[in-house]
């Protein structure tokens, strides 16, 4: 497998895309940027290479397994088994690190009790783990920090109470440990771990035992094909921290332009709203950037703006869009400053405006700012592609559609479900191109 990898180190998440020689996407990976681009880069790449392995397995096994649903079931189970193995491995690491952190002057006289409590928590966490990765299990997030954190907090509270220990003390130990664990890149080879996952599969999914027996050999054969990382190109805000030479680093403007072109070859205008910047990019029929504009001096109206508003409203950022969709009207929010918008929001709430109407107004405010950046870059040309994390927000998309139609008429608006990977896709295409040249 010759792999061409693009990595987009964003302010919130880090994404990776693996392409094959024919420019087909083999795999995608995403992780939180965790203020440590080096680890984020390794994790995202690891995830993308893992996904690439699954793509190759699917291709390789398609002829062996006649029923497509059976194959999907098998591969889905294999992935869950892999994730479970990975999760437990990280739990072990977390436990060990927690025990290590629970030493010293602060814990004097209570070390044994704390260690016991930590061990008890992890016994529960480990025994709960298979349920997290069971078929049809719903997880709010796939990031280890989120999964382990929410369980630790739930179990920790009870354990602390039972042991007569301060919950804050345990939480403090956890907070210190998770940072270290999260910043340790995944260890071990994907191949070995997948073989381990295959072995566990019979135990986890006995109903698949026939299939596992049939597929074990072909899977092993497929995994024996080495993955050759031919070229890697990095982009995004963290790109300067990458240990890559200059030729292996591209600006996110170029990567987003090319990525959007690869998804929709007729794209001429690209809008990307990410965590801390909004970019409007004009590309030609080859995906080459002709012009661009970005937000300047201020990041109001970007993804983080929504994060701030969500905090103010005591909500999750992903709940904002659905809430705004329930609005019957849109409250006008004038302020372009994030903090002032928060003040305006409280003011409107005090005046008795409905939450959903205010949130709808905030979405409109974001898109109005984006419209100004679009017009400065030269306006909207057909086709228009919207990318970045905010493209997943249905209320933002609704406002954007309305304003595009009102200002530029009937243009095709593309929003790809994988739009968050646009920059990484463009970077991977540059990686492929570097080799082609």
């Amino acid at each position: 497998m010759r792999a061409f990898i693009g990595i987009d180190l964003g302010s919130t998440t880090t994404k990776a895309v693996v392409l094959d020689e024919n420019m087909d996407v083999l795999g995608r990976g995403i992780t939180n940027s965790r203020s440590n681009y080096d680890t984020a880069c390794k994790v995202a790449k690891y995830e993308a290479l893992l996904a690439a392995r699954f793509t190759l397995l699917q291709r390789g096994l398609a002829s062996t397994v006649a029923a497509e649903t059976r194959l999907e079931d098998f591969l889905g189970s294999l992935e869950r088994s892999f994730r479970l193995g990975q999760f437990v491995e990280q739990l072990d690491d977390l436990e060990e690190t927690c025990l290590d952190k629970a030493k010293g002057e602060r814990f004097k006289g209570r070390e044994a009790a704390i260690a016991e409590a930590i061990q008890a928590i992890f016994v529960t966490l480990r025994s709960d783990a298979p349920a997290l990765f069971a078929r049809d299990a719903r997880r709010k997030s796939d990031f280890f920090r989120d999964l382990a954190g929410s369980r630790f907090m739930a179990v920790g509270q009870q354990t602390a109470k039972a042991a007569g220990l301060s919950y804050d003390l345990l939480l403090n130990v956890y907070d210190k440990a998770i940072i270290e664990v999260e910043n340790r890149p995944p260890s071990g080879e994907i191949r070995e771990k997948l073989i381990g996952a295959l072995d566990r599969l019979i135990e986890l999914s006995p109903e698949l035992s026939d299939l596992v027996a049939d597929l074990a050999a072909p899977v092993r054969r497929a995994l024996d094909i080495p993955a050759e990382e031919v070229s890697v190109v990095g982009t995004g805000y963290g790109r300067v921290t990458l240990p890559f030479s200059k030729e292996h680093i591209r600006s996110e403007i170029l990567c987003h332009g090319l990525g959007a072109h690869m998804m929709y070859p007729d794209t001429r205008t690209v809008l990307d709203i990410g965590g801390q910047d909004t970019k409007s990019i004009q590309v030609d029929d080859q995906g080459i950037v002709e012009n661009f504009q970005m937000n300047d001096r201020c990041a109001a109206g970007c993804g983080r703006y929504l994060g701030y508003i969500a905090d103010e409203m005591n909500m999750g950022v992903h709940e904002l869009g659905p809430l705004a969709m329930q609005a019957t009207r849109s409250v006008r929010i004038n302020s372009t400053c994030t903090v002032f918008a928060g003040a305006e929001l409280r003011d409107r709430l005090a005046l008795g405006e409905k939450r959903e109407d205010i949130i709808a107004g905030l979405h409109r405010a974001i898109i109005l700012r984006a419209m100004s950046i679009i017009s400065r870059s030269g306006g909207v040309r057909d086709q228009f592609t919207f990318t970045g994390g905010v493209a997943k927000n249905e209320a933002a998309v609704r406002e954007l559609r309305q304003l595009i139609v009102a200002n530029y008429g009937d243009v095709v608006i593309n929003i790809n479900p994988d739009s968050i990977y646009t920059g990484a896709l463009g970077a991977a295409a540059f990686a492929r191109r570097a080799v082609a040249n």
Partner: protein
Amino acid sequence: MNARTAEVAKDSSMLKQKEMISGNYRKLENAVADGRKVAATFVPGNLNELIMCFDVVNNLPEINAIQNGLRKKTGGYIMEAEKRGHSEDVCTYVKADLGMIAKGNIGPDGQKLPDPDLLLLSYTGCFTFMKWFELLRDQYKCETAMLHVPYQGDGQVSKNMISYVVKQMKEEVIPKLERVSGVKFDIDRLRENLARSAKAEEDFVWVLESAKAKPSPIDAYFGGVYYIGPIFTAFRGTQDAVEYYRLLRAEIAERLAAGQGPVTPAGDMPAERYRLVVEGPPNWTSFRDFWKMFYEEGAVVVASTYTKVGGLYDQGFRHDPAKPLESLAEYCLGCYTNRNLPARIDLIEQYMEEYQADGLLINSIKSCNSFSAGQLLMLREIEKRTGKPAAFIESDLVDPRYFSPANIKNRLESYFQMVDQRRIGGKSVPARAA
């Protein structure tokens, strides 16, 4: 030419300029003791040769703001001015000046600057200049001479405009200079000064135009702001300026002959990768960092409009001893700052072609409404006319709060890569949709 002579040659013009600037600050510091009068005046449309006829020392508030910006002193001055009620959106040259005055009027070189005896408001294109001196007049309660220079609204300088400016010089400016200084106006002295100006201007233009060569031996923006120093400020018309430009020209001629690129703070630029035209002033508080973002990428500015705010000598204008006052009037009317948008676009287009530039970069100044207005339209028009890529960045003159290095670097890098990509063309971009 060997490396050693290049170094010596480089030093001589720089040392000369340094000496000239500190010499002028010394004159200002000692003005009261020496019994000399002081005029405060602006760069675009300044009447230095005329001021010199009255033995008046020239103090330029814009230059003080720039010098303080380079020395990272303006942040505090601006805060001081804001504390005194000047809004965040006011021109930061103005606030840096007012803040400096409020904090004791200590000049960039650490010595107290004298109060002006005359505010000579000869300015072009920017109404903030007028408001600035209104504030200074309130502060100093001194004589003010106003020279109104009509704006080139239709892109032309008419005979009437020239005679209108000359009339004001005769009836307003010269009598006030005579009254303040006690020196009688001598037109022959003015002619001598103008002859020296023309001589320096000749060498200055030669230096600017050396950037037409590939590689360019100069950076016409980051290096250019040093080269304009004497001719834009208190030295036009002096023998020192003649000498400075003679030295500079010789140095650049050597670099040109040796096929060398510009000198940067990190030494000689090894390879010229991008040739740019730049519109707008540089950021002064992070000048070195800003410059580094260019030379590290091999980007050379081959022509800039900022180096024309104190006169468009490369378009053929020279101060003329044969028609002294008329030539000063023509100079004021012709400054870049006094040109309308179509004329600015034409000039940039001309530079793009004559200097074989890869693209245009606009550094738009947050606190300068006079010149930032319309810059995006200029950019679009240049793109349309030349087919070359253009980029737009934003910063400020001397307010350190408005220089966001990560964002500016990001945009510049994107721009340079965009130029690269456009050069390669679409052929090697894989067209397959994912």
